[in-house]
């Protein structure tokens, strides 16, 4: 209590003014005079009395000093003084301050911005109760079934786990799917999550209004829980946070459902990148995904299962405790009719499946997996940029320190200690980096929005925030300290080593300040060159990767002349039969449009990235008529004339046509890669294949072979692929239309939208664009890396050039006398020019030599993001070197030319 009271008093004492000083002087004066009077009274002469009193009391000024130290807080006072000094000094150099703060703001801003995304996607735990207790459960190995969702189990398996797992207090599951929500006469596609009844309880998330699902109310009846929980964000953005929405009905996939509640604000579920707008009980699956039920099917793996561990359990011990149940369930599944006829070798593999239990404190995000590498590469790039920025600010500070040496020497001469000077310099550095950090934070807000806007294809990252949170603030503060240390160290070390006597002597006659800082500045410039080289080489790799990806032959002809869009009538309540009619009519309508050469559709879109692709386990008939070992191949359902539209030639056999209009799947078309793999040197025509591995589904005849083309994109390349007639699949599924036109495709977009819209205005067309734009969207991450790495490399190179220019100017100024002498002795201007440029090139050489091994190492780090180019690509290295050398020479030419114009007579006279 007393200490706090004293501290407050002293804090107030910081602002003591002249008044307080006068008080003290008066008090001390009174003391002195009373002493003198006493002395006089004891019989001293006035002289003696005064002398005695002064002696006895100690120095007046020293006392005042001691008193002032007690009055305020000396440390704070010193800091304030330094800050005032700093501001005064910086005000005198606005250009320097602007340059330093701007580069630091940029450096810190881009780092804070990339960190904002990286942190949310990769580092943060879920904002739910006790996230460390969460685990994800799935099985790895031969599941003999339909695997449409990654890391998924069958729903009956989920129920088994839920019933018998002592290690887990909750076992809950989810399935992500798009749905159509209609309300107030407006329909839109939303991201939805089908969840088990205990989902909210298990995550410890409550409602913001109404109620959330509970196992007792929302997990009992098959297809019998027409209820919805809206996310808080969707409630605010779509329903204007209207409390009356709770309890009212909305149409989900044209099915009336009651909004029972709003989930808590800030709750996003399990995927930080994509938070669903609505949640529906998983028992509603048959109505939410018409034509695909699988709630009771042990062969359909589509629910992602999570658990919350009881205290004392680890993922490993949880797994051990679940293993017997899992093995027992697998054995039971094998005896079911679906698997009874499976041959022995598959039974063994089936039983060898492994139950995986992994920590899920950060949830599960497919987006995370695909963005992680790119984000880390980007973080590395901007980290390098920050280091370059620090070096260039250090160089600026050194230049200023050289100019300030006289001032510093004078301050030392009149009694400032080295410690005080260092403190002053640290305050200056911290002030600069602090200002840079504050500005950078503002900048990062805008930058993050730009990044998200550019990067988030079809809302893949819509769950991420651009606003910096306290973690980003802490990160930025750490950067501020780190940068201040990094760029403040060099000038500070110069100051500490300052030789007072010679500096004062030298400063008196030389105009260029001390020479001590030149080697250090050269080292900094060499380091900048090295870093610029790293960034240039990296940029080269990413730019060429992008070029390679874009130029890779997709197997489709003229993708700039193909229009694509998606429709999903099932989300408007269409049955499979009505849906098929809709597709047929849409094809007819489009084909009859002027300017359309041909049109077709496919179930899975092409060049759409490696998200959800349909693959299947198949077995293929060999020469002897036996079905060989199963393999997983890509599968797609397509319409007649699809291949013609895409420009994929049918090289053997036939395309799908009227013969494949309905009924069960009878014919298949395979690509060349498939033919090469399963029928090397033979024709696959007339051979058969069966789906579901050895499950002996009906035999399907191969009726055609088509040329190879990409499915997911250039990175994945050509893979073995089987095409089926979509009409024979009987699926209720969205399809992607493809329309070929010899005209400018943009001119057709509106017409196509209108014509298809006429068929049923309630069915939205989405993702309408050319296939070329689709490819660019799929390559978004690569485009981003190429663009940003180039931008940052250019930035670093410019900073290095500026640094080099500064140093060479200084070098030339210093060597004026020497140059004059050389010229007097007959050196030609060309030789002088070369002398300066040679010095610059030697710096370049050192930087290059230092950068090369790192460039190789970094290249290896990013190799997973490269395509068609080796991490240590010679061409890229040479190109980066030449670019950098040109810039270096360019930066050195101006000071070099100045050296040539030195007048020998003048120079020698001065020296």
């Amino acid at each position, binding site marked *: 209590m*007393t200490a706090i*009271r*004293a501290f407050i*008093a*002293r804090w107030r*004492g910081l602002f003591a003014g002249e008044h307080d000083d006068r*008080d*003290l002087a*008066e*008090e*001390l004066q*009174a*003391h002195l*005079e*009373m*002493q003198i*009077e*006493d002395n006089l009274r004891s019989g001293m002469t006035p002289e003696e009395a005064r002398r005695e009193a002064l002696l*006895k*009391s*100690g*120095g007046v000024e*020293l*006392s005042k000093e*001691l*008193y002032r*130290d*007690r*009055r305020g807080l000396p440390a704070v006072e010193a800091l304030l003084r330094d800050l005032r000094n700093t501001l005064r000094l910086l005000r005198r150099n606005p250009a320097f301050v602007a340059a330093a703060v701007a580069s630091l703001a940029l450096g810190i801003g881009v780092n804070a911005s990339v960190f904002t995304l990286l942190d949310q996607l990769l580092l943060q735990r879920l904002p739910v109760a006790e996230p460390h207790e969460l685990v994800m459960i799935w099985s790895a190995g031969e599941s003999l079934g339909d695997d449409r969702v990654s890391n998924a189990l069958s729903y009956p398996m989920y129920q088994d786990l839920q019933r018998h797992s002592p290690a887990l207090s909750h076992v809950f599951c989810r399935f992500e799917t798009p749905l159509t929500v209609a309300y107030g006469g407006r329909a839109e596609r939303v991201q939805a999550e089908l969840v088990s009844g205990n989902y909210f309880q298990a995550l410890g998330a409550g409602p913001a209004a109404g109620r959330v699902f509970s196992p007792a109310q929302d997990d009992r009846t098959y297809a019998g829980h027409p209820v919805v929980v809206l996310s808080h964000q969707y409630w605010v953005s779509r329903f204007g946070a209207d409390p009356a929405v709770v309890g009212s009905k909305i149409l989900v996939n044209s099915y009336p459902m009651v909004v029972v509640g709003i989930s808590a604000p800030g709750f996003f579920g399990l995927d930080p990148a994509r938070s669903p707008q609505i949640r529906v009980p998983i028992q509603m699956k048959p109505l939410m995904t018409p034509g695909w039920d699988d709630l009771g099917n042990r062969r359909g793996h589509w629910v992602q299962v999570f658990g919350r561990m009881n205290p004392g359990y680890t993922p490993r011990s949880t797994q051990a405790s679940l293993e017997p149940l899992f093995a027992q369930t697998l054995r039971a599944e094998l005896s079911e009719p679906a698997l009874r006829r499976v041959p022995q070798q598959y039974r063994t593999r089936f039983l060898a499946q492994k139950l995986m239990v992994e920590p899920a404190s950060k949830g599960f995000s497919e987006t995370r997996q695909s963005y992680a590498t790119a984000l880390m590469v980007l973080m590395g790039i901007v980290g390098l940029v920050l280091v370059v920025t620090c070096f260039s600010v250090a160089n600026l500070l050194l230049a200023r320190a050289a100019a300030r040496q006289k001032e510093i020497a004078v301050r030392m001469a009149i009694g400032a200690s080295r410690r005080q000077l260092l403190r002053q310099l640290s305050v200056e550095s911290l002030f600069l980096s602090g200002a840079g950090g504050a500005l950078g934070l503002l900048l990062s807000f805008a930058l993050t929005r730009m990044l998200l806007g550019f990067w988030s294809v079809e809302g893949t990252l819509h769950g991420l925030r651009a606003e910096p949170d306290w973690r980003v603030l802490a990160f930025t503060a750490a950067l501020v300290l780190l940068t201040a240390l990094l760029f403040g160290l060099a000038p500070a070390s110069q100051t500490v080593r300052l030789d007072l006597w010679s500096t004062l002597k030298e400063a008196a006659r030389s105009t260029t300040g001390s020479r001590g800082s030149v080697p250090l500045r050269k080292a900094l410039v060499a380091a900048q060159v090295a870093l610029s080289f790293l960034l240039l080489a990296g940029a080269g790799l990413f730019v060429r990767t992008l070029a390679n990806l874009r130029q890779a032959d997709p197997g489709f002809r003229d993708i700039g002349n193909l229009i694509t869009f998606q429709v999903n009538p099932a989300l408007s309540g269409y049955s499979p039969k009505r849906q098929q009619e809709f597709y047929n009519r849409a094809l007819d309508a489009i084909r009859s449009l002027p300017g359309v050469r041909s049109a077709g559709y496919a179930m899975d879109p092409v060049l759409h990235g490696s998200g959800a692709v349909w693959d299947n386990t198949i077995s293929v008939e060999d020469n002897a008529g036996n079905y060989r070992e199963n393999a997983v191949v890509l599968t797609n359902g397509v319409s007649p004339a699809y291949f013609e539209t895409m420009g994929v030639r049918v090289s053997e056999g036939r395309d799908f046509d009227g013969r494949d209009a309905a009924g069960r799947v009878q014919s298949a078309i395979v690509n060349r890669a498939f033919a090469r793999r399963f029928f090397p040197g033979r024709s696959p025509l007339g051979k058969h294949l069966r789906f579901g591995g050895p499950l002996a589904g009906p035999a399907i005849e191969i009726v055609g072979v088509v040329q190879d083309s990409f499915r997911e994109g250039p990175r994945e390349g050509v893979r073995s692929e089987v095409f089926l007639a979509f009409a024979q699949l009987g699926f209720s599924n969205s399809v992607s239309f493809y329309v070929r036109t010899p005209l400018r495709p943009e001119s057709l977009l509106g017409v196509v939208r209108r014509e298809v819209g006429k068929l049923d205005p309630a069915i939205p067309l989405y993702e309408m664009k050319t296939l070329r734009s689709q490819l660019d969207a799929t390559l978004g991450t690569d485009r981003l890396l190429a663009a940003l790495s180039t931008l940052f490399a250019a930035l670093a190179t410019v900073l290095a050039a500026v640094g080099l220019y500064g140093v060479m100017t200084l070098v030339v100024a210093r060597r004026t006398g020497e140059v004059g002498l050389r010229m007097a002795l007959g050196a030609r201007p060309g030789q002088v020019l070369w002398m300066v440029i040679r010095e610059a090139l030697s710096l370049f050489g050192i930087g290059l030599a230092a950068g090369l091994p790192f460039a190789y190492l970094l290249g290896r780090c990013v190799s997973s993001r490269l395509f068609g180019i080796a991490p240590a690509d010679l061409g890229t290295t040479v190109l980066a070197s030449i670019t950098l050398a040109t810039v270096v020479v360019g930066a050195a030419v101006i000071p070099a030319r100045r050296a040539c114009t030195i007048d020998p007579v003048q120079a020698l006279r001065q020296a």
Partner: protein
Amino acid sequence: MEEKTDVWQGTLALMVLKTLETMGPLHGYGIARRIEQTSGDLLTVRYGTLYPALLKLEQEGYIRAEWGVSDNNRRAKYYALTASGRKKLASEALQWDRTTGIIARFLGPSEAAS
């Protein structure tokens, strides 16, 4: 003169409080004189030590200062004990008694001799 010791920082505060309790409100010079006299002129109080100590006690709220007029009509700052200062003095005096008692027992005639 040589044998006089500067007053120790820690004990000065206690002496000041005690002085103010005995004498009532007093100016800095008076406090210094009183301490010196009480010590039998064995201690010297310099104002480099005295005034910061007074300020510290004031900041801690144990004493209160206000300007007044001295006996011979001189303007001087008078210090007076506050209630919390009185309490502080009591506890400090007790503490000091205890400490000196312990030290005295250590330095006193050894138990073997007694």
